């Protein structure tokens, strides 16, 4: 076992899981509020990346300006979308809302293509954070990943304290489950909902600002992240923030491990056989048969390729065996 490799991969996975949670936390809050999934949520993540790229690189105002400014800008856009779009569509029911968010996702994607083109933008990690923070064994852990972890964790602590320790936070919690009762007590629930939508989109944008430098900023960024976030909130349990956290971590860490590993499915099978003390020659015949059935290609693939299936496989299994998700409450 290469402990350096395992430790660093775990830390990288943590960084990824946390930014997944930045996005899925907002989506979960918005789901609790609207009762439908917001398909445009990942588009705000992508917008975050583009706005940060403009501010930091095209205008040369640096990443450090973009970091606080972009969530504010995109959060404001989110509030406008809620106030002048969703709030009206809401009257026509859930299906209309769902279609509205679908349309919005396509609209934003085409808009970004129109303005920035198809190609990947060179949105990069700021220079001071480009190095290695420390090495475990011979494995380097990048400063930027540590920065991502730090930013995400600070945001969550702030959000957690806001929701559980302040009166505003308690009003928000109550409004998510009992909007009518909260209105009857004199609290402006439509305003609260607009703010929640704004905060949710701002979190997605913040994730875009910090995560897209490690990935690729392009019109497809939203479409690549969207399905993963969808999987996360289904696996965690729709409407459960804790569930979204757990599922973000599981999926962030495991997909990072798959990505990092150099193994093929074949070599994993070999290793497992070794561990169990099975004579490899005994498996030769079944392996041969599998190949003949054309599953052989699968066996020769790398775990990285096969790992891409993992989140979806997990979602299907969860839906079969625990439809309410890991920490979700069963619908009554």
């Amino acid at each position: 076992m290469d402990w350096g490799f395992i430790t660093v991969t775990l830390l990288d996975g943590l960084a990824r899981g946390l930014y997944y949670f930045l996005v899925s936390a907002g989506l979960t809050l918005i789901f609790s509020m609207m009762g439908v999934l917001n398909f445009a949520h990942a588009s705000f993540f992508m917008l975050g990346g583009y706005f940060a790229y403009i501010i930091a690189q095209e205008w040369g105002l640096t990443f450090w300006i973009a970091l606080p400014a972009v969530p504010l800008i995109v959060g404001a856009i989110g509030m406008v979308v809620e106030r002048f779009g969703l709030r009206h569509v809401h009257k026509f029911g859930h299906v209309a809302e769902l279609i509205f968010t679908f349309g919005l996702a396509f609209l934003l994607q085409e808009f970004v293509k129109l303005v920035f083109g198809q190609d990947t933008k060179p949105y990069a990690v700021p220079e001071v954070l480009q190095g290695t923070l420390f090495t475990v064994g011979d494995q380097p852990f990048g400063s930027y990943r540590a920065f991502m972890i730090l930013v995400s964790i600070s945001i969550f602590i702030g959000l957690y304290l806001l929701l559980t320790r302040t009166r505003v936070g308690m009003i928000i919690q109550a409004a998510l489950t009992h909007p009518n009762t909260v209105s009857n007590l004199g609290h402006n629930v439509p305003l609260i909902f607009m703010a929640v939508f704004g905060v949710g989109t701002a979190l997605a944008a913040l994730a875009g600002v910090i995560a897209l430098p490690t990935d690729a900023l392009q019109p497809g960024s939203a479409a690549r992240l969207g399905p993963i976030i969808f999987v996360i909130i289904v696996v965690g349990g729709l409407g459960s923030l804790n569930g979204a956290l757990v599922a973000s971590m599981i999926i962030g860490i495991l997909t990072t491990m798959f990505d990092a590993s150099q193994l093929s499915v074949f070599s994993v099978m070999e290793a497992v056989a070794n561990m169990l003390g099975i004579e490899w020659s005994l498996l030769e015949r079944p392996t041969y048969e599998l190949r003949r059935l054309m599953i052989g290609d699968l066996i020769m693939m790398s775990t990285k390729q096969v790992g891409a299936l993992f989140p979806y496989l997990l979602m299907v299994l969860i839906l079969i065996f625990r439809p309410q998700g890991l920490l979700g409450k069963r619908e009554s």
Partner: protein
Amino acid sequence: MALLNVNDLNAYYGKSHILQGVNMTIDEGEIISLLGRNGVGRSTTCKSIMGEVPPKGSITFRGKEIAGLAPHQIAQSGIGYVPENRDVFPGLTVKQNLNLGVKPGQGASRWSEEDFFELFPNLRERQDVDAAALSGGEQQMLTMARTLMGDPDVVMIDEPTEGLSPQMCQRVADLLEEIARRKIAILLVEQKLTIAMKISTRVYVMGHGQIVYEGTPDELMSNDEIRQEWLEV
């Protein structure tokens, strides 16, 4: 001038016409009972006054038209509402629930937590407990107290004694009397005549989405015809 004046109030659920021209008035400090059989539209009357079900017609509060305002604006203007479903906020403690009854920007109130803790020592003991863990009766007390924390001038209370033990019903009656002592008007929706008859200054009887009778409790008690036609089952 009446505190609350409801004039030709109509309300619909989709196509069904539930309130068909309700008229009533409530004066400062009055205790009014709204009686009627199941399903005649008593809760809908409260909900339309509150703006939760869109009202057609006129509702004035202190002379100001409130029909068409959002529920939180109506609450802000001084109308309190304790719905029949007793929904306390789960995940929040008793104390936190009470705190959410205080309106944003509210000044000095006629009520404090301490008032309710004195009336219901149970709530004091359980102030740090998740409100969802309370008994039905305690939840009823809590939702009434929560609404009163917002210092309304009139409070609509929908079937507060439904499903409660006789002791708990007595507690509810105690609170109603305390509200009346503080000169806060009450619109009490009830099925049981006993409490309503004892504390009301006036009663309305509802049938088929309209007010079919208005009078004092004594007048209603001596009017067998109305009671048989509209109240007794």
